[in-house]
C-alpha cells in the first residue's frame, strides 16, 4: 500500500548518506525502506522500549533534536543519526538496605548535585517528561514527586547524552520509583492477606473440584458464573 509517487518522496540523510524515501514513513521504516536491516537501534517499534533513540537536524535549522525512530515521521532534508546505546553506569545497590531520602541519591549518584537547572534534559525527552523537575525533586528528597514525574520514562538515554552536568537522569528516576513503591507506598494489605490464604490451602478443595468436573458440567459452571464488574 506504500505510495511511491515521486511527488510523495523526500530526501533524508542517514549518517550523512542521501536517500529518497516516501515522506509518510517513520524514521525507522524509512531506514528500512532505504535498505538498512536493524540489529541495534530497533526494539518494540511502538514507543515503549526506548531502543531507537535518534538525533536529527532539519533543513535550515540549527537545532539538534531528539526522537524515537519508530514515532517520528521523516521530513525533507532531515539529517539522522541513531544513538542505540548511551554510555552510563548504573550503580549497584541492595534495595532492602536503602532509605527513601535525598541522601540515598547523593550516595549512589553524587553527580546529581551538579544539576545546573538548565532544562536541556527536559527539552531532549521524546516522552515530554519534566526531566529536570524530577532530578530536582530527587535532589531535595521528594521521592513521590520524582517517581511520579518520571513514570513515563522509557530509558532511551537522550537526556543523559545531552546533560551538560553529565547526570544520567533515567538511572536516578529508576531508583526514585523503586524507593517510592517499596518504602513510601509499601505492600497492599489485600495482597498479603490473599497470599496467606493461598498458602493455607484455602482454595485447594474448590479448585480440585473444578479440575474434576467433566467438560459439560464445567462449561455449565462457566456460562452461569456470577459476574460482578
Amino acid at each position, binding site marked *: 500500500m506504500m505510495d511511491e509517487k515521486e511527488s510523495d518522496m523526500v530526501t533524508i540523510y542517514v549518517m550523512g548518506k542521501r536517500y529518497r524515501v516516501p515522506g*509518510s*514513513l*517513520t524514521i525507522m*521504516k524509512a531506514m*528500512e*525502506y*532505504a*535498505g*538498512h*536491516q*536493524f*540489529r*541495534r537501534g530497533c*526494539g*518494540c*517499534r*511502538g*514507543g*515503549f*522500549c526506548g*531502543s531507537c533513540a535518534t538525533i536529527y537536524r532539519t533543513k535550515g535549522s540549527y537545532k539538534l533534536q531528539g526522537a524515537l525512530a519508530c514515532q517520528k515521521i521523516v521530513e525533507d532534508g532531515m539529517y539522522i543519526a541513531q544513538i542505540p546505546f548511551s554510555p552510563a553506569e548504573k550503580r*549497584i*545497590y541492595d*534495595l532492602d538496605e536503602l532509605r527513601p531520602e535525598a541522601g540515598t541519591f547523593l550516595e549512589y549518584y553524587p553527580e546529581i548535585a551538579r544539576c545546573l537547572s538548565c532544562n536541556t534534559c527536559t527539552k531532549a525527552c521524546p*516522552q*515530554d517528561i519534566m526531566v529536570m523537575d524530577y532530578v530536582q525533586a530527587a535532589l531535595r528528597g521528594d521521592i513521590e514527586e520524582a*517517581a511520579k514525574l518520571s*513514570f*513515563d520514562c*522509557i530509558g532511551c538515554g537522550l537526556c543523559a547524552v545531552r546533560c551538560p552536568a553529565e547526570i544520567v537522569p533515567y538511572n536516578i528516576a*529508576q531508583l526514585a*520509583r*523503586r*524507593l*517510592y*513503591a517499596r518504602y513510601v*507506598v*509499601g*505492600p*497492599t*494489605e*489485600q*495482597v498479603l492477606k*490473599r*497470599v496467606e490464604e*493461598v498458602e493455607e490451602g484455602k*482454595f485447594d478443595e*474448590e*479448585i480440585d473440584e*473444578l*479440575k474434576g468436573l467433566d467438560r459439560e458440567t*464445567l*462449561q455449565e*459452571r*462457566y*456460562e452461569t*458464573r456470577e*459476574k*460482578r*464488574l
Partner: protein
Amino acid sequence: MTGYPESMQESLRLVEKTRPDRVGKSFRAMTADEKDQILRDWHPDFKEDQKRALRIGPSSGQVMPHEVANILEAHTAITPSEIDLTDVAYDVDVLIIGAGGAGLSVALLAQENGVDPDSILMVQKLRLGDANSKMSQGGIQAADAPDDSPVIHYLDVIGGGHYANKPELAELLVKEAPDVIRWHEELGVMYDKLEDGSMQLAPGGGTSRKRMHSCKDYTGLEITRVLVDEFLNRGISYVEFTCAVEFLMDDKGQVAGAVLYDMDSDEYLVARAKSTVLATGGFGRLHIQGFETTNHYGATGDGIAMAYHVGAVLRDLDSTQFHPTGAAYPEQIIGQLCTEKLRTRGSQPVNKFGELFVYPLETRDVEASALIRECYGRDNGIVTPTGMRGVWLDTPLIDIINGEGTIEREFAAMLRNFNKFGINIREEPMLVFPTLHYQNGGVEINTHCETSVPGLFAAGEVCGGVHGKNRLMGNSQLDLYVFGRRAGRFAAERAKKASVGKLTLGHLDRYEKWLADAGIETDRKAPILLPEYRGKRTLEHQLKLL
C-alpha cells in the same frame, strides 16, 4: 481540529451524534452458541486453507498456521560441521535464553535458589528487557480483591481458553498470582492504587471480577524495568545482542546448553550448561495470514523452532491470538496495540453509523471475530485512504464516564502515541482492527516448567498449555512471573545434581532425516532471528561480499 481525513469525517460526525445516547448503554453479551458460531465463521484460526498438519517430529499431525509450520519444516540455520564443540566459551549451571519478563524472573529465582551469579548466563538477541513483556499496557491479573478468589479466576481462565488448558498449569497461574504481585511490590513496582491504599482494579474481556492490576498503561514497562534494575544489582552474567541459534545436547540425551551467535561480530560461541531455560517469547513477527502485529521486533518464533530441533513436544499452536483492537489509522502505526484497558474503562467499539454492535468485553477471540464480521461481513467498517478497514473505538467516553482527566491519568502512552500522529483520543475515537498479538500455544511444559526433553526448561509465551486456545487479558504478564519464577527454582535444583556429558549436535542430523523422510524439499532455514523489512530494490540487488 481533527486528525482524520475528509473521507472519514461523515462517519466521525455520526459517532459524535450517537455518543450521548450510548453513555451507560452496552450491547448484549453473546450466548455460548453465538460465540461458537462467530468464531467458526470469522476467526482467522478457523480458515482451513491457512493452516496445515505438521509432517515431521514428535508433534507431527498437529495443525498450525502455514507460517509456523514453515519454520518447523525447515533446515537448521547453522552448519554443524563448522562448529567446534570443544571450544567452550561459557560453562555455566543455568543458561537462560531471552531477557523479557520470564527470563529475568528465571535469573532472579535461580540466584535466590543457590546458583552463583557467575554460574548463570542470560543471553538476549536485543537489549536486556527488550521484549513483548515491556509492551504490555493494560495490566496483570491476580485474584486478591475481597469479592474475588483464585477459584473464580480459574473458571475464567479455563472457560476463556475453551477448556483446552492444561488444568494443573492454569491452577498454578491463579494460585501464585497474588504472590507475584506481592513480589513485585517488594521489588518496588508502582501499581495503581486507590485513595484508601487498596489496589485499583479493572475488569478484562472474559473476567467475571475486577482483577486487573495496572501501572497506568505502561504496566509491562514498569515491571520489566524494575526486574532489569534488580537483575543488574545482583551481578548476574549476561550478554546482549547475542542469541541462541541451536541447543546443544550431550551423549546422555540431555539438552546441555546452546550454540550462541553474536549479532555484532557474526561469530558463534559454545555455551555449556547443566540446565537450559527457553524464554524467547512468541512469533508475532511471522505475520500469520499477513496480519500486522503488536509484537516486538525480535518475536520471530525462534524458541519453538529450536525446541523442535531437539524433539520437544508442542501443543495448541492451532490457535493464535488476534487482539481485537490494533490501530488501523494512521498508516504509520497500523497494527500497534490499543490496549484492552480502553474498553474496560468504558470506550466502545462502534461501526460507521456510530452504532454499537458487540459487547465490549467478550473474550479476545470473540471480540476480534465480531470486529472482522462488522468490517467484512456486514460492510459496516470505515475505509481509510490506503484501503484499510476498521471500526471506531470511542475513547472520549472514558472521560465522560469516569470524569475529566481520566485518559490523561491512566492512558499516558495511548494519549502520547496518538498525539504524535495528530489524533487526540480525548476528543476523537481511534480507528481499530484486529492485529496479531500472542502465541497461545507452544512448547509443552509440566508444573516444573520442564519440557519433554531432559535439561530443557521453558517459561512464558514460548510455552503452550497455560491459556488453552485463547488467553485472557492480563494473564500473559502473570504467566511470565509465575512460570519464570518456577523455572528458575527448578532449573537451579536440577543444576545442583546434573552433570553434562560429551556435547553433540547430532540432533540436527536427525532433524535432516525427518525432513528427508517426509519428502520435504525446501530452502527455508530456522530460526530466522530477525524479520525482513528492507525495501524490495535492496533485496533484489543484494550481494554478500563482506
